[in-house]
């Protein structure tokens, strides 16, 4: 985050910009896949860590932003 922003927000913006009009829940699954694939150094900087989003939805319809 210190250099380029957080994994979550930066990946979210990248995926949404590249896929206008697609179902947001589908896109968030893709965002989560990419974030989960990242290897990051933890605050102690001596071990690789992982990150994973949590998505909660009570949407009743598809939400497609464009």
């Amino acid at each position: 985050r210190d250099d380029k922003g957080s994994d979550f927000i930066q990946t979210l913006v990248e995926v949404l910009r590249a896929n206008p009009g697609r179902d947001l829940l589908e896109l968030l699954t893709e965002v989560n896949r990419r974030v989960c694939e990242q290897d990051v150094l933890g605050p102690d900087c001596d071990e690789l860590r992982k990150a994973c989003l949590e998505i909660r939805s009570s949407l009743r319809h598809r939400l497609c932003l464009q």
Partner: protein
Amino acid sequence: VEPWRPELAPGPNTQYDLSKTRAALLLAVIQGRPGAQHDVEALGGLCRALGFETTVRMDPTAQAFREELAQFQKQLDTCRGPVSCVLVALMAHGGPQGQLLGADGQEVQPEALMQELSCCRVLWGRPKVFLLQACRGDVLQMYAEAQGPLGNGNFFPCWSLKRTLESASSNSFSEVTAGSSCRGAPPGRSDQADILTVYSAAEGYVAY
């Protein structure tokens, strides 16, 4: 009963109508969070590109988090035209039990903030998107080398149980919001429907 068919073509019954006003509120603590400015710029740019009327507030205190959400709700409720969709992004350091830390170091519960919009009249039946970029605890997700039959040098993620999630999530959503549900929602409609929440980390865990 007619079986559910996911291949149904997009239409008024399968997709939210986003043809009216879209509003976004971005609240970000950037002091003490190097690089957070990049997130604000990127997300703000995306929201504007997607047609959201976007409000950005930097370095809110815990109290200001609450006030901004309340103000946002009032703005929406007094909005002349219909509102199609709202997006709220909350970006800050997170406390050990999922709290957000305002610029003054004071805590605020994100679920309590999100609850503000459940009572917003003009948003009944409209999609509400919440993005939370913050730690939700102090448990670290680690890598571990696979053992036994899954071995052969492959790696897979495992959970680091430095402390139990039970203690990490002791201040759970249900406890926070118990008794605070919205009164006056239209009959037969849940005030908890049409909400999409995306957390940058699992409950109890550190976000990177």
